[in-house]
C-alpha cells in the first residue's frame, strides 16, 4: 500500500513541477467558453440555454489536451518499463496514475466553475447540478481517456488520433450531463441522469484499470 502512496506522491510532485501543463488546458477551456457569447449571442436567455452544453463540451475538449500527459513521460523515459519489471500490479498502478491525473487536471476546473457559470448566466440550481455532473463525470473522462492514451502513447503523433478515438465514446456522458443541468433549470428532478452517470462511472472504474494495463502492455510490445 505504501508503494502506491509512493507513486501518488511522486506523480503529484512531478505534476506540480510542470505547472504550465496544468494551467494551459484551463486557459483553453475559459477561452472556448468565451467564444460562444461572441459567436452565438450574448443574450442572457440564449446563454442560459446553451450554457451547460458549452461548459461540458469545453471541458471534454480541454481534457483531451491534458490527457496525453497521463503516460507520455513515463513511456518516453522508460519509467513504465521499470514499473512493469517491479512486479507491481499494473492495473493498480494505472488506477493510482488516473487518480492523480484527475486530481491535478479536473479539480482546478471546480475552482474555475463559478466564473464559467457567471459568464453563461446559469442559475444557482443549474450551477449545483453542473458541479454534481462534473464531479461524477470527469473521473469517467480520465478513466476512459487513459485507455486510449495507453494505446496511442507509443505513436509519434497521437494527439489528434486520441481525440478521434475518444469524442464518440464521450457522447453519452455529454448527453446525460447536459440534460441533468437542463432539468435543474426547469426545477425538475435530475436524479435519474446522475444515477446513470454514476453507473457508467462504476462500470468504468471496475473495468478501465485492466484495459489500461493491457493497452500499456500492447504499447510496450
Amino acid at each position, binding site marked *: 500500500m505504501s508503494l502506491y502512496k509512493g507513486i501518488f506522491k511522486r506523480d503529484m510532485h512531478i505534476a506540480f513541477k510542470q505547472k504550465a501543463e496544468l494551467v494551459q488546458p484551463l486557459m483553453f477551456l475559459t477561452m472556448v467558453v468565451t467564444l460562444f457569447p461572441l459567436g452565438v449571442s450574448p443574450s442572457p436567455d440564449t446563454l442560459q440555454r446553451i450554457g451547460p452544453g458549452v461548459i461540458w463540451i469545453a471541458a471534454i475538449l480541454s481534457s483531451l489536451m491534458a490527457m496525453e500527459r497521463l503516460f507520455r513521460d513515463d513511456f518516453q523515459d522508460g519509467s513504465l518499463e521499470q514499473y512493469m519489471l517491479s512486479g507491481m500490479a499494473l492495473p493498480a498502478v494505472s488506477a493510482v496514475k488516473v487518480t492523480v491525473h484527475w486530481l491535478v487536471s479536473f479539480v482546478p476546473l471546480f475552482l474555475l466553475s463559478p466564473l464559467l457559470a457567471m459568464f453563461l448566466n446559469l442559475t444557482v440550481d443549474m450551477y449545483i447540478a453542473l458541479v454534481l455532473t462534473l464531479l461524477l463525470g470527469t473521473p469517467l473522462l480520465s478513466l*476512459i481517456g487513459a*485507455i*486510449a492514451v495507453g*494505446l*496511442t502513447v507509443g*505513436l509519434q*503523433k*497521437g494527439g489528434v*488520433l486520441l481525440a*478521434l*478515438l475518444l*469524442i*464518440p*465514446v464521450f*457522447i*453519452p456522458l455529454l*448527453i*446525460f450531463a447536459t*440534460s441533468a443541468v*437542463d432539468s435543474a433549470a426547469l426545477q425538475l428532478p435530475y436524479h435519474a441522469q446522475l444515477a446513470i452517470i454514476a453507473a*457508467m462511472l462504476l*462500470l468504468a472504474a471496475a*473495468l478501465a484499470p485492466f*484495459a489500461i494495463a*493491457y*493497452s500499456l502492455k*500492447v*504499447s510496450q*510490445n
Partner: protein
Amino acid sequence: MWKWLHPYAKTERAYQLCLTLQPWFWVGALVCLSIGTVWGLAFAPQDYQQGDSFRIIYIHVPSAILSMGTYVAMAIAALVGMVWQWRTAYMSMIAMAPIGAVMTFIALFTGAAWGKPMWGAWWVWDARLTSELILLFLYMGVIALYGAFEDKQQAGKAAGVMALVGVVNIPIIHYSVEWWNTLHQGATISKFDNPSIAPEMLWPLLISLLGFAFFIGAVTTVRLRNEIVLREMHRPWVQALAMKAMSKQQSDAASTFVKEGN
C-alpha cells in the same frame, strides 16, 4: 467445443477456408440480393402513407442492421484474438472494419435520402440516424488507430481494444441518443417505428438482409485473403502460391500466343 476452430488460427488454413467459403458467399449474395431487391422494389405493395418512397427500406434497413452487426462481429474477433492470441482473429477484425464503415455510410446516405421526401430536409437529428453517425465515428477511430501503427501485429491488438471499448459503448450510446431525442423532439414520430409490417413487405426485406450478410461475408473473405498474403509475404507458402499463380499466368499467356500464331 472450440477445438474445431483452432486450426484456423494458422494463417494458411484461414486462407484456405476463405477460398472455400468465398464462392458460396458470392452466389448467396447474388441470388438473395437480386430476389430481394426485385421483389422489394417492383412487386411488394405500396405503403399507404409513404407511397413508393418507403421502398428504400430494402437497402436502408439491412445496411443499418448489419452496420451494427459487423461492429459486434469485429469485437468478437478482437476478443478471440485477445484470449487465444490468434493473429488471424485480428486480421479478420480489420478486414471487416472498412466494410462495416461502408455499410454505416450506406445506412446514413439512404436515411438522408429518405428524409428528404419525408421531412423536407436531407438531415434531421433523428435518434437512429444520429446513432449511425456516431457508429461511423467509432469505425473511423478503429481504422485510424490501426493505420497509425507500423507494426501491424501491435496495430491489431490496439484496434481490438478500441473495438471492445466501442462495443461496450454502443448500447449506451444508442440508449442515450434515443433519450436525448425524445427530450428535444418529443412530438415527431420516428419514421422507422412501423407498428407492424405486412408479410408481403417483410419477406423481401428478410431476403435482402440475408443478401447483404452474404455480401459482407464475401467481401470479408476477399479482404482477409488479401491481408493474409500481404502480412505473410515472406512465408514459403505464400511464395509458393505466388509462383503458382505466376506460372499459370505465363502458361495462359503462352497459349494465347500460340493461338494467335496459328
